[in-house]
């Protein structure tokens, strides 16, 4: 059987892993530089695409053409996401059903952007094995609905990957723990990632991983933590520096580049505060440097409402599993956001036991995906995952009321059959509207698809017997069939996914993906080198404006010469030259950086020297 890799397609980072045949253990594949995480970021530049770390580095400088957190848009319609779009610096358009992004002078759908990330991981795996990789297990949040799962499968197809299985992230994590014999009995997997939250409760026994219940929120994660922190910092900057801002007519909130820098600074501070009680945030802005100390307590107060939002789904999952918190044997933490100490405390309080995270929370989902891939490849025979469908599935009936065929938390694969009838005499066409969700009225649930059943013999209302069959496969993806039973007549069904791409759309995108291929290796490296040069140039220009007067004329002229040399090199295509000039400029500005830091600290903190209060980088 062909090799199958496991992929964690995350909101913030993505990874690819496989099970090592010799050790039987899952391993994350690193890139040539030894990096295991691939930032799920795609940059559209005139020279081509950049992915991952290179794209992350251009976030602040090309905000309109650098797409991050696209997972939040997968399988979504305009109404689902319009409220959070103002936080994205790139342009999102209301497409037909699915949203589209206008970046780099073209329009792309979220699956196409995810496909670029998947293709980078595919190439990473191919470089590792020295052979083509065509099959993958890809993980999704357990609480993803059918449209979001379909969108993920579509992304795989566009990337040239056959997604042989969609696996839920928390259950994948449980497989990784199970392989290490760490999770046994009844376990709760609390998975808080960059953009999504899941809670899954499983019984692990005799190699069977039986999911008892799952719940979550597909719009809650580290991104939201960063956002509240960013808004708080923005307010603080405006309050402290309003005089300067007014004088220079600076509108921070509408400056995409500054907002990106602020977002990255907020994220970095959040991460530091997981290990430390306090941290300092220094952000050079036009004309002045914002500098302040932040304590963990302050940030926790901001995060508290978001963390509290994860507890409701936990209680619901427990209730659906018919369990009380003390019946949970182990609590496992997954996802980078579970490093936040407040999250750990709240989880511990809810379940009454210390959660554990022996396996790296950033990697455990990919490791689990690799285990599932190995099960499918026939390499592991004693483990079996029995997952559930997270949301109820039903049909809209008269009056807009939902009739549920498959309740949430039903073990998959599963099928259900129900009889329906007509409401009008002589009706020959019947509308079937498939919805997903827990609300009583169809309009309040997610619309998955509309079908028309044609060719029903005219009969009085209530006479036809229309048999509707739902089948959910092991990926959690639904197929629907309908037929009129009384006449036994074959009836045609037309499928129109509400928030999905048609097969023709996907075919076209596969074609397009070759046209808009990633920049070739040389170009990519050149773009990266230029990006680095640009970053240094931006910082130096800003520093010179602020701290320039503190320098001796000679030194200042030296820096200006180095800037000019780098600018000239940057226009050319000689990577080595750009890199050398960048290094030169860095050397020339060493003293400038110190001077600036001292100036900033004196302004903000009196007479303490930089090395007295700065934390280690």
């Amino acid at each position, binding site marked *: 059987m062909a090799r199958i890799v496991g992929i964690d397609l995350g909101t913030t980072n993505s990874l690819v892993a496989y099970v090592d045949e010799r050790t039987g253990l899952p391993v994350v594949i690193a890139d040539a530089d030894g990096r295991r995480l691939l930032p799920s970021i795609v940059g559209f530049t005139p020279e081509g695409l950049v992915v991952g770390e290179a794209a992350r580095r251009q976030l602040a400088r090309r905000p309109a053409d650098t797409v991050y957190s696209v997972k939040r848009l997968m399988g979504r319609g305009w109404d689902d996401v319009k409220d959070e779009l103002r936080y994205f610096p790139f342009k999102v358009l209301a497409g037909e059903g699915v949203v589209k992004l206008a970046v780099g002078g073209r329009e792309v759908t979220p699956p196409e952007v995810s496909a670029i990330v998947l293709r980078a991981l595919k190439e990473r795996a191919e470089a590792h094995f020295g052979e083509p990789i065509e099959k993958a297990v890809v993980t999704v949040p357990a609480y993803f609905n059918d449209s979001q799962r379909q969108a993920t499968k579509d992304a795989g197809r566009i990337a040239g990957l056959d997604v042989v299985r969609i696996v839920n992230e928390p259950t994948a994590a449980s497989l990784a723990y199970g392989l290490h014999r760490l999770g046994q009995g009844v376990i709760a997997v609390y998975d808080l990632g960059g953009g999504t939250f899941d809670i899954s409760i499983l019984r692990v026994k005799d190699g069977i991983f039986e999911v008892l219940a799952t719940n979550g929120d597909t719009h809650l994660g580290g991104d939201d933590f960063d956002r509240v922190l960013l808004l708080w910092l923005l307010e603080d900057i405006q309050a402290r520096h309003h005089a300067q801002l007014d004088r220079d007519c600076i509108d921070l909130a509408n400056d995409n580049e500054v907002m990106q820098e602020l977002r990255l600074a907020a994220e970095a501070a959040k991460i530091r505060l997981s290990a430390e009680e306090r941290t300092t945030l220094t952000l050079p802005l036009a004309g002045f440097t914002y500098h302040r100390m932040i304590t963990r307590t302050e940030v926790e107060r901001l995060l508290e409402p978001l963390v509290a939002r994860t507890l409701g789904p936990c209680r619901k999952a427990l209730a659906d599993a018919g369990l009380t918190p003390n019946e949970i044997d182990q609590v496992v933490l997954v996802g980078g956001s579970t490093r936040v100490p407040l999250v750990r405390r709240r989880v511990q309080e809810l379940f009454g036991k210390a959660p554990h995270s022996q396996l790296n929370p950033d990697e455990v989902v990919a490791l689990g995906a690799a285990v599932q891939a190995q099960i499918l490849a026939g390499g592991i025979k004693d483990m079996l995952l029995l997952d559930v469908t997270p949301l109820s599935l039903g049909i809209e009936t008269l009056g807009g009321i939902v009739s*549920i065929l498959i309740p949430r938390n039903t073990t998959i694969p599963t099928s259900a059959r129900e009889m329906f009838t007509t*409401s009008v005499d002589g009706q020959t066409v019947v509308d079937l509207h498939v919805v997903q969700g827990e609300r009583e009225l169809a309009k309040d649930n997610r619309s998955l698809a509309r079908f028309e059943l044609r060719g029903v013999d005219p009969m009085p209302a209530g006479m036809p017997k229309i048999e509707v069959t739902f089948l959910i496969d092991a990926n959690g993806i639904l197929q629907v069939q309908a037929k009129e039973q009384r006449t036994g007549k074959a009836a045609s069904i037309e499928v129109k996914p509400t928030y999905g791409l048609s097969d023709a759309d996907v075919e076209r995108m596969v074609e397009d993906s070759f046209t808009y291929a990633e920049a070739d290796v040389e170009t990519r490296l050149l773009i990266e080198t230029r990006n680095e040069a640009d970053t240094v140039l931006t910082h130096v220009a800003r520093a010179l404006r602020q701290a320039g007067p503190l320098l001796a004329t000679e030194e200042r002229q030296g820096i200006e010469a180095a800037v000019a040399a780098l600018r000239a090199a940057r226009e050319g295509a000689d990577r080595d030259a750009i890199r050398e000039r960048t290094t030169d400029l860095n050397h020339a500005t060493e003293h400038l950086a110190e001077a600036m830091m001292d100036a900033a600290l004196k302004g903000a903190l009196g007479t303490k020297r930089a090395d007295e209060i700065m934390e280690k980088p």
Partner: protein
Amino acid sequence: MSDFFEIFGLERRLAIDGAALQQRFYELSRQWHPDFHGSASPDAQARALEESARVNAAYRALRDPLARVEYLIRLTGGETRGEGGTLPGFPSNKDAPSKPKAPPALLAEMFEIQEALEEAKAGPLDDAARATLTEQREGLEARMAETEARIIGPLSQAWDAAPPPERPAALNALKEALATRAYLRTVVDDLGAALEGREQEARH
């Protein structure tokens, strides 16, 4: 096609050993789950999917004693859930599928509660109304629990013990108790929705 009891090699009885059922479920899952048939022919894969879906549906129906009774009633011809409903798409004079009707024995005492519910829906709740509704909900919850205990306890045992000619009567007793429970469930949900000021969730 074999029924759910037969899938697990069980006699058609309501008393089931839960641990043995789980054990058998795991065995059947290992036999049929699509994970273990990925390299089989398309026909064999389709068969595995179908069988696996059926095993899961059967386990779901049998592992919970109440769901088991509902399944038994469906199996023996008397639908408890009725038809799925009437499909929309055209204007109709027919009534929308209605919520479970009150069993005759409960009609009188439910009248008062329904009235309180209507009032709650009309406007915000004051403390007195809230206290009354809470008390009513607790009373009904206790009653629902008692009905459930009766279904999975004595009534199920009675059906298992009944000789074939007496089975329809035992089954009818189960049906009536289930109808009472379904009705209580609806009212408890409505009370909960009114008290918590949320919209009603869909029913299974």
